[in-house]
């Protein structure tokens, strides 16, 4: 790191220089221009938000500031001093800390070991660990950041893992803290706690940059906000002077209908009955603890809950991906094989469609062409089969072409591999495949995660259309807004059980949030 005094810069007598100044930052990943000539200023002691569509370049920009990526061009000033950030080491030395979207923790290490990694005091571990233990105690007291220093990081919840990340930054005496989508994995209560910490930090004079998709959070905690679009910085505004819909418009470049339009549901008979479902994972931990509910024609049953409370397992058991430990699922009078012999293809034959939570890992084969992906799971159907075990590739291709047109998947070229589509279009490929089979029951996990606002509109419309065609839909989402907007009935899951059932018109975020945290407000009352 080289520090050069800028002669044009006012010194101590003048007002404090901004904590962060990014000047003309550009960055390309191969053919992708992730950041284009970006300039941004953050005042010292401010909480600054950054919003933008998926892939807009937010993480890239902050990773450059943190020295994780190297910018192709541009300059950085920290506290008014031109600073060359060659790597994360230099960033740390300049007082910058970052909590990455995907945590950078060593799962097999203890909290303490994770905290000192790279900030040890000498070649031997013992003294470093002892010192860190004390320091952690102090930080915990000061900022409400309690964690057991000897816990193995892989075994604590994401909320605590995030605290470890913040502790790591504070232990390195960060004056500037960057948080990349910190609330995506938190319960509302945990998120509130986080924001309290952030305000506390702000009071101590620290500068905070917050990347988030949730416009409400921007409105609640930030002082200023920047909007990014396709690698460019389109606006920086005082938060007080804007509104969510204005921000959304700035992000997408057109006005967005933020409400889902749907008629009241006409609910029919029960299609699927889940009774006493229990699922244990590989370590023998119960992930689903005796769950029962039923699903009816013509309804969207929303399952709310913080990620990791059993929703994934529920979806996977129903979708035939993992066996159940015990329990029963009855579909139209016949029970479904939940044993190890369960098989997702058989489920599809029974009329169960499945849009998985993780489209990258499950829903698509990223290196497969679109026409191969639109047959995924249905490749043994008669229309895709030929004699002697051969595949009818012509039929697959024609089928893909049609789906791409009907779902407005762009570019509509079935020969392109899945990874060359944007997140929204990838999700549309999965949806087209599952919805066009016209399943009796459609399982949908996180339908709009990482999907831009325009695509969200379309996807929501499709879900509602399927419901109106009299099909049953089980929707799992960590986004409360989405659950509230789409569901005709809401179940809240917490720690493998159904914590409560509500109708959307009779509840609010607050109550759902409490349920998601394992508290039943009705029971308490």
């Amino acid at each position, binding site marked *: 790191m080289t520090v050069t005094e800028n002669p044009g810069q006012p010194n101590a007598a003048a007002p404090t220089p901004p904590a962060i100044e990014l000047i003309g930052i550009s960055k390309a990943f191969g053919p992708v221009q992730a950041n284009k000539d970006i300039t941004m200023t953050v005042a010292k002691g401010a909480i600054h938000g950054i919003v933008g569509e998926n892939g807009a370049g937010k993480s890239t920009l902050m990773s450059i500031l943190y020295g994780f990526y190297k910018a192709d061009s541009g300059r950085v000033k920290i506290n008014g001093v031109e600073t060359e950030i060659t790597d994360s080491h230099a960033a740390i030395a300049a007082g910058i800390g970052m909590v990455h979207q995907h945590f950078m923790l*060593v*799962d097999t290490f203890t909290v303490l070991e994770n905290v000192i990694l790279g*900030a040890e005091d000498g070649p031997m571990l013992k003294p470093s660990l002892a010192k860190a233990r004390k320091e952690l105690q102090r930080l915990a007291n000061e900022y409400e950041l309690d964690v057991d220093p000897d816990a193995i990081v892989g075994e604590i919840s994401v909320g605590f893992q995030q605290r470890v990340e913040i502790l790591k930054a504070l232990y390195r005496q960060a004056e500037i803290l960057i948080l990349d989508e910190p609330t995506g994995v938190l319960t509302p209560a945990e998120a509130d706690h986080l924001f309290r910490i952030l305000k506390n930090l702000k009071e101590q004079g620290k500068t905070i940059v917050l990347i988030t998709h949730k416009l409400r959070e921007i409105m609640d905690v930030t002082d200023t906000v920047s909007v990014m679009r396709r690698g460019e910085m389109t606006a920086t505004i005082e938060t007080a002077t804007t509104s969510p819909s204005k921000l959304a418009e700035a992000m997408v470049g057109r006005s967005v209908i933020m409400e889902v339009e749907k008629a009241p549901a006409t609910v029919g008979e029960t299609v699927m009955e889940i009774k006493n479902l229990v699922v244990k994972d590989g370590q023998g931990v119960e992930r689903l603890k005796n769950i029962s509910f039923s699903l009816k024609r013509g309804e969207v049953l929303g399952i709310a809950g913080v990620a990791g409370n059993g929703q994934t397992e529920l979806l996977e058991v129903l979708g035939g991906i993992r066996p159940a430990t015990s329990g029963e699922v009855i579909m139209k009078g016949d029970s479904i094989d939940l044993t190890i012999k369960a098989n997702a293809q058989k489920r599809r034959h029974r009329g169960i469609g499945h849009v998985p939570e993780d489209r990258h890992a499950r829903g698509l084969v990223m290196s497969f062409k679109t026409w191969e992906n639109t047959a995924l799971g249905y490749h043994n159907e008669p229309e895709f089969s030929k004699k002697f075990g051969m595949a009818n590739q012509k039929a697959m291709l024609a089928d893909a072409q049609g789906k791409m047109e009907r779902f407005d998947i762009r570019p509509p070229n079935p020969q392109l591999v899945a990874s060359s589509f944007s997140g929204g279009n990838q999700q549309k490929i999965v949806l087209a495949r599952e919805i066009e089979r016209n399943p009796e029951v459609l399982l949908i996990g996180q339908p709009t995660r990482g999907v831009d606002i325009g695509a969200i509109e379309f996807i929501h419309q499709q879900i509602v259309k399927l419901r109106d065609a009299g099909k049953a839909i089980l929707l799992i989402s960590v986004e409360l807004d989405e659950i509230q907007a789409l569901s005709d009935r809401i179940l809240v899951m917490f720690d493998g059980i159904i914590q409560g059932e509500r109708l959307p018109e009779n509840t609010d975020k607050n109550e759902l949030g409490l349920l998601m945290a394992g508290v039943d407000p009705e029971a308490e009352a």
Partner: protein
Amino acid sequence: MDFGSILQILDSAVRFSTPLLLACLAGLWSERSGIFDIGLEGKMLIGAFAAGAFSAIATMPVYDGGWGWQTGGMWVGMVAAIIASILLALIHGVASITLRGNQLISGVAINFFAAGITVLLGASWFRQGGDTPQLPAGGRFRPIELPLSETLSDVPVFGPIYQNLISGHNLIIYFGFFAVLATYWVLFRTRYGLRLRAVGENPGAVDTAGISVVKLRYSAIIITGILCGIAGAYLSLGTSAPGFGRDMTAGRGFIALAALIFAKWRPVPAMWACLLFGLLEAISTKYQSIDLGFMVLPGQFMQALPYVMTVVILAGFVGKAIPPKAGGEPYVKER
């Protein structure tokens, strides 16, 4: 079986296990840093060759083109072995760290390369079909009698154990056991070890902590090279077959790998695993066929025993051996 034969078998087991142990620890360093290494065999082989060749050259009479050293030739061999093995390790490093190539393929290539080049060079240097000349006493590591081994030999039980089993091995064997402790200590007690373990689990965490992933991994690979070189040197300088013979590693690199998995990438269990494999080899050497009463296990069965046991152990007793999480995959920040 009397006490004497038991001691003899154990003694033999220690000798058989030493090259395995050194190679296993070598693999441990590499894999703990996130670089899979099935090229241990090749690095050992080239180490054995370099050791045999340079020790031979050092001790060969001057008129034969050697240096005419009477003693200490083995140290020349040892250094050569380490250098040769490090060079191969660096090729693996460039392939898997810098060029982000496939680590398995790189390992396979290195094994092939070593199998070929040792014979080519050996045949061209010494004209003995790829073998090196027999080494004189000054060109190899001789057993060391530990103090008091004669004096204590009369003490019942412990005396013979001390004299035969503990004393009377060469320096490399003692180094092997020292390396276990050193590996343990460095990995779990020092800053470097912490970082190294971290880079094998999550290189992103190391990178964002401001430490160079590349440097850490290269350093681990070099340690792997050193240890493999010593393992190879043991084969040509430390056994009763002084000198290099073609393909003399005979699959030990793979057994060492199996031991590493068996030990779940931990140094002390690695030692036990290697001793177990050494013991199996010692038994199959001493008992060439075993009469079970109702049938005789043929010699071929005894020969295959270490391999069969490897499979059985991997399948039956290891449980789920979870390798360092980042192992095998190159660290790619920007695609």
